C-alpha cells in the first residue's frame, strides 16, 4: 500500500528532454488542443494514431512507459464503469446482439462505443499527466499566469490561482506520504481498511482523514509564514529565474499539434 507509487498524477519528472525544454505556455496550449481534438476525433483510426503519437511523446520526454501507465491505476474503476455502461446501454437498440445477461443486452454497437469512449478516456488522462511529467509546477504556474493575464480585467486573480495550483501539486506527495503513515499507525492499532460493507470502509477512513486535515491546516499555516519570511508579497513586482520565451522549437511544436489535430479530426 504505497500510495506514492500508485498516484503519479501531477508528478514532475526532472529531465532535460526537448519536451522539458519547451515553453510551458506551448505545452499548456498544446495539451488543451489535443484534449479538444480527442473529443472531435470520429474514428478508431484517429484515436490509434493519437495513442501512437502520445507514446512517441512519452519516449521523447524520457518518461518510462510503466510509470506513465501506473498513473492510470487510480482511474481504473471509473474506466471499467464507463466501459460497462456503454456496452449495455450505449448502443441503443441498433446493432447485432453480442450476448445477453438477464435483462441486460450487450450489442455490438454498444461494445464498439464502450471501447471508443474507454480509449478516449485513457488518452485524455495520459495527455494531462504527460503535461505535468515534463513541466514543473513553477513553470506551469508561470505559463498559466501568463495565459490568464488577459482575464484579470474581469476580476480573475491570475497569479493567486496559478500559485495555488502549484502549491497543491507540490504538496500531493507530502500529503500522500502522511496518509500512508497515519494509515499504518491506525492499522497497528487494529484498524482495518478495505473490509466489510461500503459504510464500514468509509467509517474506517474517518480516523485517517481527521488527523490528515488537522496536519494539512498546520502545514498551510507554517508554509504561509515561511513564504512571508522569504519576502513573498503576491505577484506584484515578482521576477522569474526562468523567463518565458517563445523559441523556434515552440513554433515547430505548435505547428505540429495543429497539423496533427486537423488530420485526426477528419480521419474516417
Amino acid at each position, binding site marked *: 500500500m504505497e500510495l506514492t507509487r500508485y498516484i503519479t498524477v501531477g508528478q*514532475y519528472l*526532472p529531465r*532535460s528532454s526537448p519536451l522539458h525544454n519547451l515553453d510551458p505556455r506551448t505545452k499548456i496550449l498544446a495539451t488543451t488542443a489535443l484534449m479538444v481534438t480527442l473529443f472531435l476525433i470520429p474514428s478508431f483510426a484517429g484515436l490509434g494514431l493519437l495513442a501512437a503519437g502520445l507514446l512517441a511523446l512519452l519516449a521523447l520526454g524520457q518518461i518510462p512507459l510503466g510509470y506513465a501507465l501506473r498513473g492510470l491505476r487510480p482511474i481504473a474503476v471509473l474506466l471499467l464503469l464507463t466501459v460497462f455502461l456503454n456496452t449495455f446501454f450505449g448502443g441503443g437498440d441498433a446493432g447485432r446482439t453480442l450476448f445477453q445477461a438477464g435483462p441486460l443486452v450487450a450489442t455490438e454497437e454498444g461494445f464498439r462505443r464502450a471501447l471508443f469512449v474507454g480509449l478516449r478516456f485513457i488518452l485524455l488522462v495520459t495527455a494531462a499527466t504527460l503535461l505535468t511529467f515534463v513541466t*514543473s*509546477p*513553477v513553470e506551469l504556474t508561470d505559463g498559466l499566469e501568463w495565459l490568464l493575464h488577459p482575464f484579470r480585467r474581469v476580476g480573475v486573480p491570475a497569479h493567486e490561482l496559478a500559485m495555488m495550483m*502549484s*502549491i497543491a*501539486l*507540490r504538496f500531493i*506527495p*507530502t500529503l500522500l*506520504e502522511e496518509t500512508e503513515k497515519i494509515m499504518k499507525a491506525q492499522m497497528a492499532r487494529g484498524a482495518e481498511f478495505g473490509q466489510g460493507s461500503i459504510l464500514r470502509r468509509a467509517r474506517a477512513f474517518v480516523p485517517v482523514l481527521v488527523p490528515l486535515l488537522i496536519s494539512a491546516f498546520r*502545514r498551510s499555516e*507554517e*508554509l504561509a*509564514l*515561511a*513564504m*512571508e*519570511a*522569504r*519576502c*513573498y*508579497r503576491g505577484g506584484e*513586482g*515578482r*521576477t*522569474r*529565474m*526562468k*523567463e518565458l520565451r517563445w523559441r523556434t522549437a515552440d513554433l515547430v511544436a505548435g505547428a505540429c499539434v495543429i497539423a496533427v489535430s486537423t488530420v485526426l479530426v477528419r480521419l474516417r
Partner: protein
Amino acid sequence: MSEPLIEVTDLRYVYHSDTPQAVVALDGLSFSVEPGEYLGIVGGNGSGKSTLAKHLNALLLPASGTVRVGGLDTRDRAAIWEIRRRVGMIFQNPDNQLVATVVEEDVAFGPENLGLPPAMIRERVGEALAAVGMTEFRRRAPHLLSGGQKQRVAIAGILAMRPACLVLDEATTMLDPAGRAEVLETLAVLNRRDGVTIMLISHAMEDLADAGRIIAMDRGRIVLDGPAARVMARADEIPGGRLGAPQMAKLARWLREDGLRLPEGAHTVEALADAVAAAAGLGTQGDV
C-alpha cells in the same frame, strides 16, 4: 565597534492581549547581536524562543520595546521587506517551507520575490547551492531528499537573498542525528568561511556546540547571556526541562567537583582530553 546587526530593547509581547487568555510570551528582553557572531538561544518548551524569532524579521511586532535590524525599526512598514531580506528565517519542518518541486526553483523563490533580474537570480541560486554543498542536487525533487538535505536546501533558499543573518528556529529538531550533524556542519562553515551571522535556536544544548555565545531563556526572559562555555557550564541552572549540558561539559563539571583542576570551556572530546591530560601533568598528547 560597528553598529550591532540586531538590537532588541525591552521587548515585550503578549498573545491574545486584552482577553482572559492573554499569554505574556516575551517579558522585557534586551540584547544585541554583532555581525559575524554565532549565537545560540536555548530554553525549554514555551520559553518564548519562537516568539522572539518571529520578532526579528517582523513576522510579529512588539507590544512594547523595539527591535532594530541594521538600524531599521521592525515597526516601520516601509522597511519590512528589507528587514526580511536581511534576517533570513529557517523553520523546524523542512517540508513546510519548500514551495517548489525542483531544488533550484525553490532556492530561486526568495530572489524572485525580491524582483531581481533572471541572470542575477541564476547566479545567486548557483552560489547558494554551492555554499551548502547541494549543487549536484539542483534538478532533484526536494521531497525525495533526506531531512538534512532538505534543510540545507531551505538554508540555500535564504542565502540566495544575501541575508546578513540566519535565524534557525529549531531547524535541527526534526532531523535524525546524521541530518543534524550535516546541518550544524553547514552552519559552522557558513559562519567561519563566509562570515554569515548565525542565530541558532534550540531546546537542546547539544546543538549549540559551535556557538560562541549563548542566551538562555525562561518564561519570556533572558536568564543567562554570555560566552558559550560559561553558559554551558551553568546549564543545570536553566529552568524549563531537559536542557542537559553537552556530555563533555557535564563530565568536565563532575571531574572538577572531584577535585581535578580543569579550565572552563572544554566541551569537545579533544579539548577535554587535552585539559585532563594537562591537569594530570601528561602534556597535551597524552593517552586518556
